[in-house]
């Protein structure tokens, strides 16, 4: 059984040789290769090379064509500050400068900002691993992208003060997300993960999610499935339990659970959805390998009777993580056999 088959078995609750393990290694792949993070997020060839090297080192089940959370907003017109050893940050939000929605246009993934480089990374990675290992692309959720276009406070106050205008922005964001995600699929990604931390219940209450977010995510995931995504993976950071009941209607096949979500509660709420998680991300920096191994074993035991599980971190494994901690998580699934 190869990695891709193993992951699809987990998605479909079928038997597999072992539990799949996905380490959310993004910028850590650059750290590992002694490459600057600033270069990594701007060069698709380099990103793919670093991801391949990390895969060879750790032997987990997926690679990521993923740069940072500012790819879409930059392609639309926000300006960024790049740094050597950190992810880029937004210098000016496009909608903070007074530009109205009617001035914005959906970016062309083959032309605008760093989108073409990300597509190159997806293409290279798929060429490298074929259908042996899952190639994951990444788009922001419409809610998170809207916040990246104008800043969090401005966006959230707009949602309350002028909900119709906010809804139009979300629709625009959904269109951007669909076009970029479909382009990633066409470039070779097996699926684009939807990263949507700003929809976390720690940011917005569940009724807000139901009113503004749910239908747009459903639209996004339907488009991805039509374009050939192997599965729909939704990554919402934080204490997501209040919004998990919406996931089946949205069309989520893999639900990421962060470290603060109780796995049994997530299993009860989503009995037929594959879950991935949920080791504390900072533990990969601060803990010892034995602790990661123990936590991995605890999770594997918790899901042993159910299946539908991919062992991973609760969110991104920080770039500065200790490699021996990532290895400890991967080795834990090997001990199952």
């Amino acid at each position, binding site marked *: 059984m190869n990695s891709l088959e193993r992951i699809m078995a987990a998605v479909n609750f079928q038997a597999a040789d072992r539990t799949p393990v996905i380490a959310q290694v993004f910028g850590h792949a650059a750290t590992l290769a002694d490459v600057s993070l600033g270069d990594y997020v701007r060069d698709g060839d380099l990103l793919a090379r670093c991801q391949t090297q990390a895969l060879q080192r750790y032997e987990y089940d997926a690679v990521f064509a993923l740069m940072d959370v500012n790819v879409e907003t930059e392609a639309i017109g926000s300006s960024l500050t790049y*740094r050597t*050893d*950190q*992810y880029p*940050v*937004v210098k000016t939000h496009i909608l903070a400068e007074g530009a109205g929605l009617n001035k914005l246009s959906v970016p062309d993934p083959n032309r605008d900002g760093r989108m073409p480089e990300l597509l190159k990374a997806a293409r290279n990675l798929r060429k490298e691993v074929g259908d042996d290992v899952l190639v994951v692309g990444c788009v922001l959720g419409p809610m998170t992208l809207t916040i990246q276009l104008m800043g*969090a*406070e401005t966006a*959230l*106050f707009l*949602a*309350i003060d002028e909900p119709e205008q906010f809804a139009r922005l979300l629709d625009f964001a959904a269109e951007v997300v669909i076009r970029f995600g479909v382009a990633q699929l066409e470039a070779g990604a097996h699926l684009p993960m939807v990263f949507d931390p700003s929809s976390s*219940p*720690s*940011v*917005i*209450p569940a009724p*807000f999610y139901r009113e503004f977010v749910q239908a747009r995510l459903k639209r996004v995931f339907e488009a991805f499935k039509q374009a050939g995504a192997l599965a729909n993976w939704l990554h919402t*950071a*934080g*204490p997501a*339990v*209040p919004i998990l009941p919406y996931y089946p209607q949205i069309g989520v096949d893999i639900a990421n659970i962060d*470290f*603060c979500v109780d796995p049994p509660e997530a299993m009860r709420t989503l009995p037929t959805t594959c879950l991935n998680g949920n080791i*504390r*991300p*900072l*533990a990969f*920096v*601060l803990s010892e390998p034995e602790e990661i191994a123990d936590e991995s074993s605890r999770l594997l035991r918790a899901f042993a009777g159910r299946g539908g599980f991919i062992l991973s971190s609760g969110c991104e494994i*920080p*770039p*500065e993580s200790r490699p021996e901690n990532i290895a400890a998580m991967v080795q834990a699934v090997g001990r199952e056999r």
Partner: protein
Amino acid sequence: MNDFEFDLLVESLLDGDQNNSVLETRRLLDAGAGRKQIITLGIESAMQQLDARCTAEQFNLLEIMLCGRAVMEVMKELYPPGAPAPETKATIVLASLQGDVHDLGKNIFKMVLTATGYRVVDCGKDCPLEKLIDAIQRENALAVGISGLITTIIPQARRVRDKLIERGLGRVKTLAGGAALKQATAESIQVDFVGQTAFDGARYLDQLTGSKR
């Protein structure tokens, strides 16, 4: 002492309704209520109820932002530009450290502290450590709050206490919060307190200042 009806103000603040909050404040002032009474029985009462609602499961930034915006409008009504500033419990310096441009969490903490009687000096986001220490010294702060959404600022967070000691400011208490920092123990990032929510931080400061909430 309490001859006035504060429930409508509290309710408007909790609803995040800034217009009604200001109208209620004007009504109370017109009826003869004192500014301190409005703060204690209106704003602080609303903050206590919001604090009680903010369990780990029910905490959301939007609700607190809306309440905070209404609180700030009420404070402007009570203390318009040029009016003497209200008495405060202590000065707290806040920042998101260099490399982190996320300031929503910090701004929420600022609002909670302001509404509960602290003077807040906000060093903003992407703040270099030296600038932060300068502000702490200049403002004679009781404590410093650092907010971090991304793990890459942890090395800087760890340096804050040593920098304070270097400058003879070892008495200043250090608080940390935000999505990345709240995953850590206080000991592991060398601060005095790690808060899961803004209200945790306010309670810690109230213990330091001996304030009742």
